[in-house]
């Protein structure tokens, strides 16, 4: 559904976000949530970002939007570096990048009417014109009833609230929307409708999505490209069909094989992964995945694998992939 022109809309280079833990009476430790991520996203493109809890995908999304300060590396939006811009200098740029959060129950102010919630970005950014009409058009466009603007968030279902959040994110006609697990917790029927809506809006609003999700099946349906994160780094990145049909990183394979297929006649032998995901507070040496990897060798315990190109648009960080 998207295309990738020469100059990417978004580019990160070796982006890092660390959080300080401990301190006072305890040794200071650094939680390396995002640890050297280089990715790019074209205009009107959808990049799926998948990984398990603790992989750093949410922190990466927030760092890109400068909602969290990066520790190092660079973020470029439309060719302009925004890594170190002050919040004041960022303000005009915020029109171009918006977010839809995971939980539509906590991301909408329960005491404000939906019209005011969706119109808020127009007020903040002093957009000229008839706000009420613009809000009405947006609400209609995302498929909410005409009287929605006068009602309160609690009067709407989870799926409808996510539509409200989408309308708010699109109010300023941004170039980039970070969608952070926006379909988790929704029933399949509702999920399908939200995904279809996102697809329609992408063409209409010419918006790019960074689509963060732990749900591989959902990502398969919406993304043009997919990046897989593990412990703060991208371990594999490829066009969607390539990633799902020819995954090269053992972690990507494990992730895919872990999902039971909805077919009782298909055999399903979930892969055995030793232990739980390690903590980003104590990152293993060498390849970060080696303690759980089914095919790790001596080299994997010592050497950090680089992200190598192994096909068109296909990058893999594994010594053994070929």
């Amino acid at each position, binding site marked *: 559904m998207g295309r990738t022109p020469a100059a990417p809309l978004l580019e990160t280079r070796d982006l890092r976000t660390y959080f300080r833990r401990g301190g006072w009476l305890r040794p200071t430790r650094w939680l390396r949530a995002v640890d050297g991520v280089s990715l790019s996203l074209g205009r009107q493109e959808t990049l799926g970002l998948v990984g398990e809890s603790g992989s750093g995908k949410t922190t990466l999304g927030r760092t890109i939007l400068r909602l969290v300060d990066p520790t190092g590396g660079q973020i470029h939006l439309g060719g302009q570096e925004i890594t170190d811009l002050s919040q004041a200098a960022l303000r005009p740029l915020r029109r171009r990048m918006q977010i839809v959060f995971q939980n539509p129950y906590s991301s909408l102010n329960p005491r404000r009417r939906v019209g005011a919630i969706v119109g808020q970005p127009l007020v903040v950014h002093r957009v000229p014109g008839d706000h009420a009409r613009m809000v009405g058009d947006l609400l209609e466009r995302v498929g909410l009833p005409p009287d929605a603007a006068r009602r309160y968030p609690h009067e709407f279902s989870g799926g409808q609230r996510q539509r409200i959040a989408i309308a708010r994110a699109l109010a300023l006609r941004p170039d980039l929307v970070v969608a952070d697990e926006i379909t988790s917790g929704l029933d*399949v029927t509702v999920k399908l409708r939200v995904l279809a809506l996102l697809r329609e809006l992408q063409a209409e609003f010419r918006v790019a999505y960074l689509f963060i999700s732990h749900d591989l099946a959902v990502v398969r349906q919406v993304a043009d490209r997919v990046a897989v994160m593990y412990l703060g780094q991208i371990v594999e990145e490829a066009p969607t069909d390539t990633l799902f049909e020819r995954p090269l990183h053992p972690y990507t394979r494990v992730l895919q094989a872990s999902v039971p297929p909805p077919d009782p006649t298909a055999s399903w032998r979930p892969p055995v992964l030793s232990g739980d995901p390690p903590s980003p507070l104590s990152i293993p040496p060498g390849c970060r995945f080696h303690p759980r990897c089914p095919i790790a060798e001596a080299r994997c315990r010592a050497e950090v694998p680089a992200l190598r190109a192994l096909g068109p648009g296909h990058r893999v960080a594994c010594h053994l992939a070929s």
Partner: protein
Amino acid sequence: MTTAPALELRTLTVRYGARLATWEVDLALDPGEVLGLVGESGAGKSTVGRAVVRLLPEPGRIEAGAIRLHGRDLLGLSETEMRRLRGADLALIPQDPLSALNPAFRIGFQATDALRIHRGLTRDAAVAEMVRLLGDLGVPEAADVLQRYPHELSGGMRQRVLIAMAFSCDPTLVIADEPTTALDVTTQAQILRLLEELQAERRVATLFVTHDLGVVAHLAHRVAVMYAGCLVESAPTGELFRAAAHPYTQGLLAQVLRADVRAAASAGIEGVMPQLAAAPTACPFRGGCSRRMAICDETMPALREVAPGHAVACHLHQGT
């Protein structure tokens, strides 16, 4: 006569204030059978599980029907008698392992409650038994796990603890309420494997409440589908996936998202699931059904058997 079913529900009707959460649900589980109970949120599937253990949140009330555990009527039992059953014959594996454990106590203290109360073990004996159980579930250094507080464990480890607790007193019926929904996929795969092994070894009747048809496909012997508080179809798992008869079940199966297939844009099931306030006077799915007939607006279809063990509540299948 064969032996009594492990669990039998007869016309179970549960009300939350003005809303009917389930209406006349009939279900039976044979000993050793795993029944997958599926449906969207609000369909009433968790309510059924909660009603069986008689732990409905307020203002939930069982308005009508019967629940029998090996032929024994549970609704006639006093709260004291019920307590004797819960955690012993009748165990619950909850959805969210963090809120199911008390954050203020070490795992060892709370996980051994059932063993001490129901099996009369001393604290030391109960701890030793729990270490053995956790070891069987593939938990290394189980003794160390018992020393920890819930927040110090990963989600997968907490769920293993709850599974060990549920199985600690050899239950004859386990209610598993979305036990893997809150977990990551790799952890979910491990827990499902574990439940599969436990099932193969112990053959405990299990009511597995879930919205995930992939989980059901591999764990359940039979599947029951709920919509708007009503049971609309139940069949052996293979048959349900191969030959679903209810238009709602067909819709559910058609809209499953798969990572291995990029589906053509599916529209999904139409309509909004209604909430019942009183006994349904028409098919609850008529609003979303593409095969709606005049009779669908007039009466609620009864559950009819269309093949051995395969029952459907739909006017398309009412026979002659």
